């Protein structure tokens, strides 16, 4: 598949990708390397993985990272209850210790967690490792073996190699320093907030029922809102929520009803101080300045 074709199929699945991103994905898929996506919250990093799963009609396996995530939650865990029962049962039948040990540390007593599951699929799935910068450095080290060799080593069993190589998408907010070792194994892309045209086409693609005029107003408003000094700048998801809210409220022109506009801003401004910093006057100015 050429990168332009990939860009087009992303578009057909309602994801508007920049040239940069389409090329990075194209390369990552062809070289079978993971792709690391960085960017602010709400620019559509996670959506890339979901869209890829749609395009290739395959399973999306998601691993949400958090502080303290360990191999038991991410890779595998032994089924301790079954192991206990098995030991009791075998002792009653008088099997020897070595046999018991071999049995209870075999594949049938293993519970697969996302990473192990991802390399055990017949059809290559999309593996989304979300917000990798939330996990600690130790976990990053775990990932290295999986991402470069696509294999997992379990002390009791040995090394399990991938049946099919998953398409790996890692996302990060570009905040914590990820180790160079992890970075160099990945194809990298930084996703900025979309420019006006891109955002407009995203809105048109996602909410076709919204008229062109209102769509232009919405995008202009959100674009200029991002230039304001806010703690949490509105992402694409917020913009889409807001558009849906406006169309639900039956508003066709955001300059027409200042009160309604102001109250609908709860979709865009997610902290109290941000809400204070955009009073009605400012929102009116933003709305009228661009219409």
């Amino acid at each position, binding site marked *: 598949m050429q*990168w332009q074709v990939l860009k087009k199929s992303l578009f057909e699945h309602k994801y508007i990708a*920049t*040239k*940069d991103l389409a*090329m*990075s994905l*194209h*390369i*990552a898929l*062809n*070289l079978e*390397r993971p792709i*690391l996506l*960085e960017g602010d*919250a709400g620019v559509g990093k996670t959506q890339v993985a979901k869209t890829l799963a749609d395009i290739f009609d395959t399973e999306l396996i998601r691993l949400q990272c958090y*502080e*303290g995530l360990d191999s038991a939650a991410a890779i595998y865990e*032994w089924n*301790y209850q079954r*192991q*206990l029962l098995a*030991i*009791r049962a*075998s*002792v009653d039948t008088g099997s020897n*210790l070595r046999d*018991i*040990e071999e049995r*209870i540390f075999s594949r049938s007593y293993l519970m697969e967690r996302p990473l192990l599951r991802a390399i055990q699929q017949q059809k290559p799935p999309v593996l989304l490792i979300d917000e990798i*910068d939330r996990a600690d*450095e130790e976990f990053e080290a775990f990932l290295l073996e999986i991402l470069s060799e696509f294999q997992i080593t379990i002390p009791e069993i040995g090394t399990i190699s991938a049946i099919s190589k998953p398409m790996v998408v890692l996302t990060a*907010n*570009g*905040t*914590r*320093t990820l*180790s*160079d070792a992890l*970075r*160099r*194994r*990945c*194809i*990298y*892309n*930084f996703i*900025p*907030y979309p*420019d006006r045209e891109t955002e407009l086409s995203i809105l048109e693609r996602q909410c076709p029922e919204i008229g062109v005029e209102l769509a232009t107003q919405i995008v202009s408003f959100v674009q200029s809102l991002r230039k304001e000094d806010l*703690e949490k700048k509105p992402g694409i998801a917020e913009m889409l929520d807001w558009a849906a809210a406006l169309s639900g409220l039956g508003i066709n022109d955001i300059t027409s009803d200042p009160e309604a506009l102001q109250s609908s801003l709860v979709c865009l401004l997610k902290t109290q101080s941000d809400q204070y910093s955009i009073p009605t006057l400012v929102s009116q100015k933003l709305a009228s300045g661009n219409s």
Partner: protein
Amino acid sequence: MAITRFLFRTSIQERIVGFSHHMRDNGVTTTPLEVHSTLRLLRLIDITNIEEVRLALKSVFTNNKESFVRFNELFDSYWLNDGKQRHDHKAIDPSNKKGNLSQNFPNLFEVNSSKGTGKTDVPDDEKDGETESSGEGKLIAAKIFNKTTTDMREFVLPEDENKAAEAARRIANAIRYRWSRRRKASKKGGILDMRRIMRKSISTGGEPLKLPRKRRPDLPMHLIGLVDVSGSMQPYARVFLSFMKGLISNDMRTDAFLFHTKLMCVSDALRDNNTLRAANRLSIMAKGFGGGTKIGASLHQFSDQFMGRIFGHKTVVIIMSDGYDSGSANVLEKALSRLKKSGCKIVWLNPLLGWKNYEPVSQSIKISLPYIDCFAPCNTLQSLADLENKLELL
């Protein structure tokens, strides 16, 4: 066809290796893996289309936001006859977020274009609020010439500076060690270690008689140092940098930033063992020296870009500055309150605080005091050593 800068023909492999070296010379980490990937991917794209090649190399050769933003310039300087060879590291500039992404294609063919050149960070020339480097307020312990209690401004000889740096590194090591002591297996841990229980219970016929326990290791403190390198701080800057270097050299959970009118992350540069390369990467200092300070704006930028990391972590932010701010005090207050809200501890080390008769009366300091957990002098090595006790109390 674009005019490249090369005088003679050679193989694609050599060119790509050359490009890899070029990127490395400019501070972007590259390895043979990138070269190998590039050679593989060149089969996937139309290599006569310069923009496709640019996008493809960008995906492979960049590995963080800074290199991603700088890539187009580096690409041009290597492949096109643009008259540019080497670039300095630039400060993180939020207004430059989109970088050269929108650079349009036809421009690539202009042979002698000067685009992108001469973009240097010009610090503003406001001298307001700057301290005189030869102030009246003399240090307390200057009478006895003792390296641990002499004001660091006195260190001008290289060997003295080395000794100071070494001492600072030792102190920093001590602080870091205390924070990063980790325990994993614990007899008094709250969680049963099922894996070990299973192993042990086999020998007792499935009866889990021994119950080994485990506990999550203590989270080490995340230390972030912000060093003011404006004109007024110049005499201290080198020693503070050594202090920062000691702090972060072995631990991934620490970060160092320099600021004057802009903020720049120098963690990677300070971790660099190659002194010459590290010095090159720190070239922002030269650009900032003698200029004003915008503490508020710098802290704002810091919150914008690193808030996500601080949130939910045990974090100590150490600001090393004399508090002479040429920016607005309101901005500083807002930035500090925002930082404080994220739950981190703020330590402000002020070299002037160790001076006799110094009163924290400058507006920026007065405004910041309520937000600061620890306000301490740092003009002598002894005061840096005392810091350890103070940090313990936080």
